[in-house]
């Protein structure tokens, strides 16, 4: 749990800077529909709608993973539960959002309560595995539900209906709805973690026994957080289903849960805006790398390793340590490579790959030497 406690130490010192940058990023996200019109690129809106929805899911995971220290490896299950509730209701002709959405959130909460109740008996790697097991159960349930398309998934032909209040078929309207929900969930998490409840939750992360001896019903607090996170993630599932007009078991495959964890860690665990940073970085990186080469994972895999090894506390952590230069260099390199790519197409792929590998190696070597020096000085 060392990195978890590290990042908690950093939140205290970082809050102001991260706050500014985080708000700026949220403001930028709010401008996307405008930019999409200015640049005549509707896909920008599509891309960022997905990013904002995933950010909501990441924010919900951060509540239990970052603040609560509960590594849930099955968080995508709630995206599935929320999505399937909407999809199944729509399939049966129920389109009213004020039935669909609350029901989806409640069912996600109930599922989270059941999973949490059993999973929280375990700790560490066992908790990771048992949450994975439960999400696999939900996954196979979706896979076996042939009435609702099974593996093929199910199309939602009619979007949720808010009466005359909101027209979700209007893409900017839907985008702003997601954006507002993201803002609200960040604010909600902020209030939660700074309440007494949140303090106990964070205390339990580093030492649950002590919190229990002080007299807090730690287990109940953790379960509550688990359920809240499940409900919020269920809401992200509702948005996903509404946005894509399609549900399938693939949305709750275990690798999706893995992606969510990566987003949170990449952005910075236990940081208010970390999940948003992480989601934006992850999905943009995926989008650009994969448009770049179909072998993009050979770059993405090592990036992940490097982030874990060197950028502890993720993007937020880097900001805290004043590694803006590193961040800037990363962005510049990204820019450069993207520029080279668009100019010369794929023939530059191999040299740039080698370049990236060489940079990584050099960085690694430098770090290793430094570390050895520190140890023996």
């Amino acid at each position, binding site marked *: 749990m060392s990195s978890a406690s590290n990042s908690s130490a950093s939140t205290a010192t970082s809050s102001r800077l991260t706050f500014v940058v985080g708000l700026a990023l949220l403001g930028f996200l709010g401008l996307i529909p405008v930019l999409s019109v200015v640049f005549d690129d509707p896909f920008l809106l599509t891309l960022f709608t997905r990013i904002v929805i995933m950010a909501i899911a990441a924010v919900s995971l951060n509540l239990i993973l970052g603040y609560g220290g509960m590594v849930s490896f099955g968080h995508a299950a709630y995206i599935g539960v929320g999505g399937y509730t909407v999809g199944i209701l729509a399939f049966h002709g129920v389109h009213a959002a004020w039935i669909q959405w609350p029901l989806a959130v409640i069912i996600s909460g109930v599922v989270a309560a059941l999973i949490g109740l059993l999973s929280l008996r375990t700790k560490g790697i*066992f908790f990771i595995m048992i949450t*994975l097991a439960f999400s696999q159960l939900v996954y196979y349930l979706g896979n076996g539900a042939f009435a609702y398309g099974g593996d093929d998934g199910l199309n939602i032909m009619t979007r949720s209906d808010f009466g005359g209040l909101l027209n979700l078929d209007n893409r900017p309207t839907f985008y702003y709805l997601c954006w507002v929900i993201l803002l609200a969930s960040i604010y909600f998490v902020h209030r939660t973690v700074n309440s007494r409840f949140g303090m106990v939750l964070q205390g339990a992360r580093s030492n649950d026994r002590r919190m229990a001896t002080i007299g807090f019903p730690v287990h109940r607090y953790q379960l509550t957080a688990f359920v809240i996170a499940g409900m919020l993630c269920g809401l992200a599932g509702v948005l996903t289903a509404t946005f894509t007009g399609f549900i399938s078991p693939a949305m709750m495959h275990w690798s999706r849960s893995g992606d969510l964890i990566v987003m949170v860690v990449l952005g910075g665990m236990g940081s208010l805006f970390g999940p948003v940073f992480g989601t934006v970085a992850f999905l943009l990186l995926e989008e650009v790398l994969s448009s770049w080469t179909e072998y993009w994972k050979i770059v993405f895999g090592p990036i992940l390793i490097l982030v874990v090894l060197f950028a502890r506390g993720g993007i937020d952590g880097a900001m805290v340590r004043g590694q803006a230069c590193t961040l800037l260099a990363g962005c510049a390199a990204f820019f450069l490579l993207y520029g080279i790519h668009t100019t010369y197409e794929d023939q530059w792929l191999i040299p740039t790959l080698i370049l990236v590998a060489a940079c990584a190696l050099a960085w690694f070597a430098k770090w290793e030497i430094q570390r050895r020096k520190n140890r023996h000085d």
Partner: protein
Amino acid sequence: MLLIFEQFLNGLQIALLLFLLAAGLTLVFGIMDMVNLAHGSLYMMGAYFAAVFTEWTGSFFLGAALALPAGALLGIVTEIIALRTLYTRDHLDQVLATFGLILFFNELARLMFGAGGMTIETPNWLQGQIEILPGLPYPSYRFLIILVGLLCAAFLYVLVQRTRLGMLIRAGASNREMVGALGINIKQLFTLVFGLGSALAALAGLMAGPVTTVQIGMGDNILILALVVIVIGGIGSLPGAFIAALAIGIIDTMGRAFLPNMLGAFLSPSDASTLATALSSMLIYILMAAVLVLRPAGLFPAPGR
């Protein structure tokens, strides 16, 4: 009756493959407290090595004999380059970094060996069947898997229970610091164990190759199963892994084999078979969840953790 026995053998064979994979994983986990998701990649690379070497030498056994040290070497190199720095990190960091390794290895294999997959040619006498019981011919290659699996289990038992290396492995699983304080270079010991685990993974991969073909990502799904095995068995415990592997292999096979007939009593045959498959897919996860709810550290947790 014969069918039940045959299905038992099928289950046993799957179980032993799982055990080979889980054994390395649990040894590594036990000593270094290190979750290595890339273990599945070593399984895959072992299978590819065997395919390439078999093609090259023209003999399955020569190919296998070369693939084992190659797998061990690859494991050791990976350990030294990428994993050493992760020992002091928490499980989450290890999961993420080794997840990155999986992505890397999968693409590397695609670049090196192509996307089309490979087959491992086995000698003719392994393509046939042996009559184990009157009226029960069994594929000789699957029989070989059972044999190799049992031999390996026995070898591991002797190694861990009867040799000094085994004592150190067990001691390391319960109290790593103390082993170091008594003069054992735990890093070296771990590299050794990691090499052993990698060789076991490669062995599992190359044994599975002729049955399941060699392909990109072949280790990803079976790795999840192997993780389930070591978690049920109790981390760091070889006997636990053995028993859990047997339980999962046999429950899985028996579930698929006999659930449709049982459900067929209530449902139409095609509904019964789809429902039975959905159920048997879930069966092992239900088993794991149940075990963990009742015994939160697995069936045979290593003492001292």
